[in-house]
């Protein structure tokens, strides 16, 4: 289990995070919600090694760890899918899945090994792409998002962080991607989803963590919470009652 304990980060005059705690147990999809400037992005950056917190502890399976670089985060099994996906649109699905981590023998690409693994991975996630040998530029937004998520899984991570995975998608594609996220949880991965869309959050998550002005402002079991309580925690109108 990956956990953040009382993490703080200050950017000059702005206290972006102020003693925030978050648990990501395996097999659970946790949604991280909050208004703009609530500290969601900073917390994600702390967990993915982009930003080093001023204070607080990150633990993995109870042991304190240091995540100083994105590379280190990946090495510890923490994969992040950024909002802009970071795909090479001129390359095909297989090439994108293994980008920077190509299967090779000496310096020669193992095309067949990569394509076999890619097809198995996509099939196991129930991602349907008609032809995985066409450039990613030819795929729909939902398919691209699925490729980006599948790519995060190539390194066999234990934690997957998804930044606004449905922000750019239509209704049907959103449903597909939410299904995919659910399947990540079913695989036993710890999943953290950052989203603005409360309907999506309720559809996909087991737990909802709310940030407000850099602090924890609520933590709900999704099934037992009401939308009003979550909104209240986000806006802070009746934050005291919403606190568990």
């Amino acid at each position: 289990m990956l956990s953040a304990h009382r993490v703080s980060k200050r950017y000059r005059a702005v206290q972006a995070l102020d003693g925030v705690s978050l648990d990501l147990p395996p097999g659970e999809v946790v949604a991280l919600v909050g208004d703009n400037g609530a500290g969601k992005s900073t917390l994600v950056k702390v967990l993915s090694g982009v930003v080093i917190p001023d204070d607080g502890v990150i633990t993995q399976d109870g042991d304190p760890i240091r995540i100083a670089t994105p590379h280190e985060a990946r090495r510890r099994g923490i994969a992040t899918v950024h909002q802009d996906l970071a795909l090479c649109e001129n390359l095909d699905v297989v090439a994108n899945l293994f980008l920077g981590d190509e299967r090779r023998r000496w310096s020669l690409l193992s095309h067949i090994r990569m394509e076999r693994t890619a097809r198995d991975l996509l099939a196991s996630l129930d991602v349907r792409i008609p032809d995985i040998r066409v450039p990613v530029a030819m795929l729909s937004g939902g398919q691209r998002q699925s490729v980006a998520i599948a790519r995060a899984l190539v390194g066999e991570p234990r934690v997957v962080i998804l930044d606004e995975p449905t922000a750019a998608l239509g209704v049907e594609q959103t449903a597909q991607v939410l299904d995919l996220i659910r399947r990540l949880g079913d695989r036993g991965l710890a999943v953290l989803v950052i989203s603005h869309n409360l309907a999506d959050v309720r559809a996909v998550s087991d737990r909802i963590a709310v940030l407000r002005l850099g602090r924890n402002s609520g933590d709900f079991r999704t099934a037992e919470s009401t939308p009003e309580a979550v909104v209240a925690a986000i806006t802070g109108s009746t934050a005291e009652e919403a606190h568990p």
Partner: protein
Amino acid sequence: MTALAVLLRKPLRPLRGTGRADLGAWPVVAGLVLIAVVFGSLNDRFLSAENLTNLALQMAATGTIALGIIMVVLLGEIDLSAGSVSGLAAVIMTILYVNRGWEPLPAIGVALLGAALIGLLHGWMFTRLGMPSFVVTLAGLIGWQGLMLYLLGSGGTINLPFDGFLARLSDTWLPAWASWLIAALVVVARAAGGLVNHRLRRAAGLPVTSLAGVLLRVGGLALALAAVVSVLSADRGVPLLLVIFGALVVILDLVLRHTVFGRHMYAVGGNAEAARRAGISVNRIRLIAFAAASTLAACGGILAASRLAAVNQSSGSSDTLLMAIAAAVIGGASLFGGRGRPYAALLGILVIQSITNGMLLLNVDSSVRYMVTAAVLAVAVALDSLARRGQPR
């Protein structure tokens, strides 16, 4: 992207994205056929074995420079210094070989090494100093030409001995049996590669193209090579220069498609930020690309010097550079980066050199020749730009 926008875009899908890559090289091949038909009907010498052999000789040098251009164009950058570097390398080689009396191979080696260092310098200025590649290599275009003129001194021209290794390089013709042997080996290698790949894919349970398709491609290649060899053997034989150029094209294509380095080249050209985040050393790739571009330009310059049997003040003049860039783009390398194969250099230089050659045969004024070449280039870049505009985002 809303669902409506997706629906609206759908009918356009076959056109967008890879655009020309979908059609492959067929538009260029169609253009070549058109050129052959037009010039062949206007002048019966155009398609003669002798003229086609001349064409093969003429395209090797600039084609090799175009190969180098493709290396940087794949990254979405440009190398304007390729012409000057080709001239400078040829002059360095000639001075060492003729004036200093070096053996030819060390002289060529030093010239290539010097060019590689020049490329690294360009790459360093681009990656470390953050200068646009356009400006870096524009400075190179002027500066390296200046150095070349300085090295040439007041004499201006240095001749290569006619019976020497370098002049003979472009006056060596493969006997018919050797040409057929090389062609046969290439076809066998291609067929073996295709069949082994087919087997391995089937064994791995991956979708395979039909065996007939594989054989059809090999048959097409065999037919094309047989045509080239029989036509060129009817005259003086297959020129060694063409074999060198062809080998460079094939090797570079294999490297770009089947090595990790090649994959990273396309990745950096497609989305440098994504490549960086994937842990690819983007600057290393860029340095190698610029070094390769300058080295290939030097190869081209040496081939040109060999053909002329001399270097002079117009070695690698601006015409060379523009022809090389035009060849790369006409052949299908995208100026926006990430798309194109080394075969673009071969096809593109064939188009340009055929037009040039045909118009010279027809005694068309060079003014018209420039305008026609420019029109072909403009059409090629327009197609490239349209293909890119069709892409989402």
